[in-house]
């Protein structure tokens, strides 16, 4: 024990020399920076694959070692365990999302306590602040975005809306639907939640059944690409565009094509590429130069609501950055 202690000053001196040669401020070289991205959506999801694209691009641009980790199915307990695993590897920074504060609080606190810089993306802005996470990169709260969308619909005279939730159990999607409902309420409207799975055929069938049994519905609002894409196909096949309006959160090539064709009303863009790109870049800067942004960064909501706007974004969406 005492022998080991004697080595400590020498070791610190040696580290200082190494670091001094590496970075301008005596910190790390970018190539030595390790960052873990532990979020609740894995890259098989269209939305999260864009986030991962941002993460991968940032890793390439900065030269840092970045790993993207997510549970195979939506499971906050599993995500908490993955965060603990990431903490065990002692990275320079961790990027997280907070879909369920109670389940993740222990793991997030462990990361903060370990002195690792943590950035929260996509969901759980207030929850992250409570847990001591200094920065949030993402859209304004899902609820706020939902209210804005609901108000737009209400202003256009659309008062009865079916909100399609394809990830029952994810609080973000619950809030998206709740926001739409409360936004509509200001104009005297209301919405009803239709729970579906991520299976395209299942989305179509259940929405078909819901519309058949609810004749007064004026519009269908998808809460993400997983539910929007099959619905676009379904609307095309059954030629429902004149009968119902279709809106969605998030963007994808199919959604943009549909808006560009003048069929869909709008898609709400969270610009999630930036949720992947910016935090990694910021954490690398933090590790190499000790810099850190001091305010939360809002990447959305951005309403892509005209064929012109959609056309402009379309190419980028195909490339996987929108």
């Amino acid at each position, binding site marked *: *024990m005492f022998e*080991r202690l004697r080595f400590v000053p020498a070791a610190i001196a040696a580290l200082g020399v190494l670091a001094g040669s590496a970075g301008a401020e005596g910190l790390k070289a970018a190539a030595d920076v390790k960052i873990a991205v532990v979020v609740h959506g*894995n*890259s098989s999801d269209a939305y999260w694959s864009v986030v*991962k694209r941002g993460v991968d691009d940032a890793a390439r641009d900065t030269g840092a*070692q970045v*790993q*993207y*980790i*997510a549970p*195979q*199915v*939506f*499971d*906050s*307990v599993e995500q*908490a*365990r*993955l965060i*603990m*695993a*990431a*903490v*065990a*590897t*002692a990275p320079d920074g961790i990027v997280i999302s907070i879909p*369920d*504060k*109670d*389940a993740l*609080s*222990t793991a997030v606190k*462990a990361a903060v*306590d*370990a*002195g690792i810089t943590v950035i929260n993306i996509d969901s759980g802005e207030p929850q992250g602040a409570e847990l001591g996470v200094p920065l949030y990169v993402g859209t304004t709260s899902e609820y706020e975005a939902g209210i804005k969308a609901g108000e737009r619909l209400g202003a256009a005279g659309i008062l009865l809306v079916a909100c399609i939730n394809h990830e*029952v*159990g*994810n*609080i973000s999607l*619950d809030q998206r639907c*709740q926001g739409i409902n409360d936004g509509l309420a200001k104009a005297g409207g209301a919405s009803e*939640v239709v*729970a579906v799975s991520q299976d395209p055929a299942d989305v179509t069938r259940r929405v078909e059944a819901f519309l058949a049994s609810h004749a007064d519905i004026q519009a269908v609002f998808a809460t993400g690409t997983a539910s929007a894409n099959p619905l676009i196909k379904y609307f095309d096949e059954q030629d429902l565009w004149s009968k119902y309006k279709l809106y969605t959160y998030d963007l994808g090539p199919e959604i943009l094509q549909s808006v560009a064709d003048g069929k869909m009303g709008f898609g709400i863009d969270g610009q999630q590429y930036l949720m992947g790109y910016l935090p990694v870049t910021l954490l690398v800067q933090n590790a190499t130069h000790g810099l850190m942004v001091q305010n939360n960064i809002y990447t959305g909501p951005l309403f892509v609501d005209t064929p012109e706007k959609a056309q402009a974004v379309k190419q980028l969406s195909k490339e996987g950055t929108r």
Partner: protein
Amino acid sequence: MTDETSGPPEPSRAPAVARKSLMAGDERVAQTSRFTRLMRRPEAGVLVGLVATFVIFALLPGAESLYSLQGAMTFLTLSAELGILAAAVALLIIAGEFDLSIGSMIGFAGIVIGLLVTRLGWPLWAAVGSAFAVAVLVGYLNGLITVKTRVPSFIVTLASLFILRGLSIGITRAVTGRTQIPYILDNPPDPWTAALFNGHVFTGLFQWMGRQGWIGVKGDGMPFVAGIPMSIVWWIVVTSLAGWVLTQTKFGNWIYAAGGDPVVARNVGVPVARVKIILFIVTAVAATLLATIQVMEAGSADTVRGTQKEFEAIIAAVIGGVLLTGGYGTVLGAAFGALIFGLVQMGIFFTGIDTDWFKVFLGIVILVAVLVNNFARARALGERSGS
């Protein structure tokens, strides 16, 4: 060597074999070496696979983090949670049945606890007790329908899988309007119930080790790993109990008999129906135990918890040498299987492999583990490719 080359080998060998079998009895009662006997145990193959998995991850990058105390805790807790299920599932598979509803049971039990605590203000012990009562009922119904109708349990429990998951979502949305139930552990009247499931043991030892500088500590001087989590303690308890029942009791013999040949078993007086119904209850109760641990750990319940756990539990049991056809396998093997599965699942992350490829590696490792297991067992049991 000289004997072999000088004398004519073929004629002399045949009578020697015949004589040996006459004098020393036949091969069925022949003495075998201790090593062969060890390798013939059902869990021997999985033990080889486990050692191989440990060695492979030791050679890959990230091993120092994976095998650190913190890293080990991440895969041990995962293995423990899966192992609790795998022990019960192994018993049921040995008895010749499947329970696909346990994943949904995890979600449903969590919802029962969550709603009773947050909506009705029940103390934790009563809510947990009610969840276990529900589990007994669900297991009983699964078992009763299976043995009465003779419909394969695969189908019966597949139906329960959907019903339980649907009930979780339906009830939770109807009562709360959401799909998560937070704040379950805020001011419960009986925090000791929570500690029974989410606490740590040997905390003093770990704090002492932290003070000695042997393990990492946080800024406040407390160790990062507070102690051995209760999930691991429960895993050991459940595995020991299930192993004892299977190997040391009459009921254990009945389980093997029910899975081996139910008709013969029934003819010699084994209450096959009762054995199976009890085991369906056991799997549902094990799922509820896991649900309770997760709810107490997370402080919240969620309608999607436990998704796909039924398959992971079956995989763990099969990796552990339990035959899907029933009648063969051990609880210890299932525990080793859970350990392999947990180690692989967490280990892949530590290696830094791009997670887009995660499932490919998981699938390959599972396949290799089962093949190694089968190969080792076949060699130990003296099977030959020709026969």
